[in-house]
């Protein structure tokens, strides 16, 4: 059986118990969980405010700090670096401790590094609002925030890898492949991109290509990889069945790594034509590993889906994330190559990919996982205190993500239709004409914020119960 729970107890006499392994995670993982959810709330609010400015230009007008051109990158970078990557670190540490049956190396150090990461993200967001953004998508943090960010990641990543090395369960489960690849992939792309863009400053449009390459790798490999790690952990666990096929997972994993790094550049225009062409082909090829991986998950859960959906909150989150992953990959395959890419180029449709991947695929998977991890680390239960808030967090997040995706996509398709015909009125149809769709986006960000808030409240309730239990014990 390849499901995560397996480990012949006699195999390693020195192996810590699952309880001890989890206890070592408590400080850093809870910290990452809490601060990522807080950044999700903050980022959703910034995104909401900036989306209002798209159709209500006088909203918060007159102050350069909150003009759309600064608010939007601040929101995106809060969501990516504050929420997504931080949640990814927490999940990675927990999965390593849990699946490797090992206590975390230096939890206090991880906590401190996490603090510095948060500090760097805060400084970066303030830097963007102050006008110091670098101008590269998903890499907008100025150098004075980017360097501490990298330094604190170096600590987090190193300790995570040391923990992995020290694991007592030698079998590497599928989730850990993805965790390991993401943990290594991120510093490589980050140092490459920062070095080439902020240090050496490659000339001309190579900058845009490097930035696009970085952003795509961050989404397609690092974050999607972490989302898949979560999916491969929770789906077999909740339905209590072994993974359908180890070799399918292996093929899917390697194909995702091989192809994933090539996608996402089909939206560039003023570059040699081979770049979008190659990237577009990769967008189509990527369907293969994603279908292989999701099919594997489907076969694992087949027959138990309805029952697990009713029973487990985590499973609901993860299932929606899997469906979204499949949909966004197909969307990229159709609108990421040739005429489709050209049609939707420079519209909200193309830009929505970031939102769907960060908030939808990764965001839902991560929120689901946190709904399982946080109660285990606080009150040693499988569910958070308030079931109603779990439902609220789930439905608000799903409705929010779907609204954002649909709103941006339809606004983008309207823009694309206007852009393709020179005799149509650009200002009237493509700019003010999409206000209705953009209002749906605003609503979606609001719902995502409510989802994050519901989780945070539940988190606080669990913490209170945890503290009460501890203090009660002392008394």
């Amino acid at each position: 059986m390849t499901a995560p729970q397996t480990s012949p107890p006699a195999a390693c006499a020195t192996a810590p118990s699952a309880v001890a392994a989890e206890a070592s995670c408590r400080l850093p993982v809870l910290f990452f969980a809490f601060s990522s959810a807080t950044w999700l709330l903050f980022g959703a609010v910034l995104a909401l405010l900036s989306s209002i400015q798209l159709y209500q230009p006088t909203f918060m007008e007159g102050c350069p700090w909150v003009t759309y051109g600064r608010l939007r990158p601040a929101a995106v970078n809060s969501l990516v670096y504050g929420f997504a990557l931080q949640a990814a670190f927490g999940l990675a540490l927990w999965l390593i401790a849990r699946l490797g049956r090992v206590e975390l190396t230096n939890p206090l150090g991880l906590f401190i590094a996490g603090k510095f990461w948060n500090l760097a993200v805060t400084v970066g967001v303030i830097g963007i609002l102050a006008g110091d953004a670098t101008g590269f998508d998903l890499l907008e943090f100025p150098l004075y925030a980017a360097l501490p960010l990298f330094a604190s990641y170096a600590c987090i990543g190193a300790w995570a890898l040391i923990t992995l090395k020290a694991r007592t369960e030698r079998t590497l489960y599928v989730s850990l492949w993805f965790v390991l690849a993401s943990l290594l992939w991120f510093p490589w792309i980050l140092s490459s991109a920062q070095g080439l863009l902020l240090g050496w400053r490659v000339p001309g449009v190579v900058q845009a290509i490097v930035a696009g390459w970085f952003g795509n790798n961050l989404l397609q490999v690092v974050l999607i990889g972490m989302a898949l790690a979560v999916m491969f952990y929770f789906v077999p666990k909740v339905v209590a069945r072994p993974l359908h096929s180890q070799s399918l997972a292996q093929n899917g994993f390697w194909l995702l790594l091989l192809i994933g790094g090539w996608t996402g550049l089909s939206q560039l225009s003023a570059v040699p034509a081979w770049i979008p062409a190659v990237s577009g082909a990769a967008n189509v090829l990527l369907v293969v590993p994603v279908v292989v991986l999701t099919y594997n998950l489907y076969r694992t859960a087949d027959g138990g889906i309805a029952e697990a959906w009713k029973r487990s909150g985590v499973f609901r989150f993860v299932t929606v994330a899997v469906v979204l992953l499949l949909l966004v990959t197909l969307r990229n395959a159709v609108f990421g190559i040739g005429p489709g890419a050209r049609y939707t180029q420079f519209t909200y449709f193309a830009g929505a990919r970031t939102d769907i991947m960060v908030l939808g695929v990764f965001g839902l998977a991560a929120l689901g996982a946190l709904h399982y991890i946080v109660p285990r680390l606080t009150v040693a239960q499988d569910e958070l205190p308030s079931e109603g808030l779990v439902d609220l967090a789930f439905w608000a997040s799903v409705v929010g993500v779907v609204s954002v995706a649909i709103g941006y996509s339809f606004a983008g398709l309207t823009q694309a239709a206007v852009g393709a015909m020179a005799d149509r009125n650009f200002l009237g149809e493509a700019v003010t004409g999409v206000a209705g769709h953009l209002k749906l986006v605003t609503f979606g960000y609001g719902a995502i914020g409510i989802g994050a808030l519901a989780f945070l409240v539940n988190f606080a309730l669990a913490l209170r119960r945890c503290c009460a239990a501890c203090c009660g014990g002392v008394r």
Partner: protein
Amino acid sequence: MNHGPLIAAGAFVSLACSWAALVMAPQVQLGSLAPAPIPNTSDVHPANRPGLAAQGAEVYRSLGCYQCHTRQVRQDALLYGARLVDRGSNASTINLELPGSGRTNLVNFNLLIALAKSRADLGITPVAVPAVLAADTNVAPVLKEFAAELKLLKQFDNKAQIVRSTSKTVNDLAATLPVEVLERTGPDEAERAVKLINDAGGKAELVIYNLGPDIERGWGARRSVARDFVNDSPVLLGSLRAGPDLACLGSRAPEKFAAPWKFASTNLASEMEQRLLIHLYNPRLVAPASTCPSAKYLFATKQPEQRFAGEPLQVPGSDKPVYPRHDARALVAYLLDQRLDVGLPEAPVTKPSVPAKIAAAPAKP
């Protein structure tokens, strides 16, 4: 798959492949790209930005204008054409007017043949030559040659099953200059036509058609290419058009703006600057439907110290002038510096067709 280092090595190889293809290869291809000289001038494109515009680029980045505006014009097709600009005169050119009449009506017979060869759809009519002239020892061989050429052409047409129009003829085509002999064809056909015409003693030039909705909107004369950005750092291409493309703002015609307008006077540059400043101050004053946020913070309401003041800006609907700060002027200088009207080897343009001049004396068949 139980060995961590194996997975790490595999991941490294995968990443190295994508890095080599999408980071290193573009750098090798584009890293040494340099501005290209503009033909017949001592200038290059893109030129180094003057100081104020370079500071404006920083304002553009800092305010995040690139979040809503792209600077990349796209085009769907690049087609060619041939334009006849001069009928020329050579041994086969004959004045159809009688000697001593004081008038001239020059006909270049070779040119007519060349035009007929370039345009298979147009007919060609034999030129009526007064009998007096036809007997001239200079004219007779030309006419003989013309007749022979016509015969050859006819034979060729029959062989290739070309049916020429009888109502439209190349004789009419050549009546006004300049004239587009071929429009929107492939490069080979256009070049052949240019060569045929030039060999026939006429003068023709190759016309380039950059086609696509962006170009039809007047957002640029051609597509943006990598070379346009060699002087930029950071390169702010933009990826969303929540507002119009700005790649060619500085050389765009006033009627091609989102809110079209006309120059009130002839002081073009300063008027354009004035208009952009008002747009920055409040976009709704220029285009009522605009969703561009106002940048009022780039303007002072009180008159600054005299030596920093610059020209005050008269805002419509307000009797009090405002004073653009340095950043506002820099941003406008940067925007006015955006141009795509210059041809590059990889993205050529031709001058727009000048309105047809009335030919001195059209060749009447």
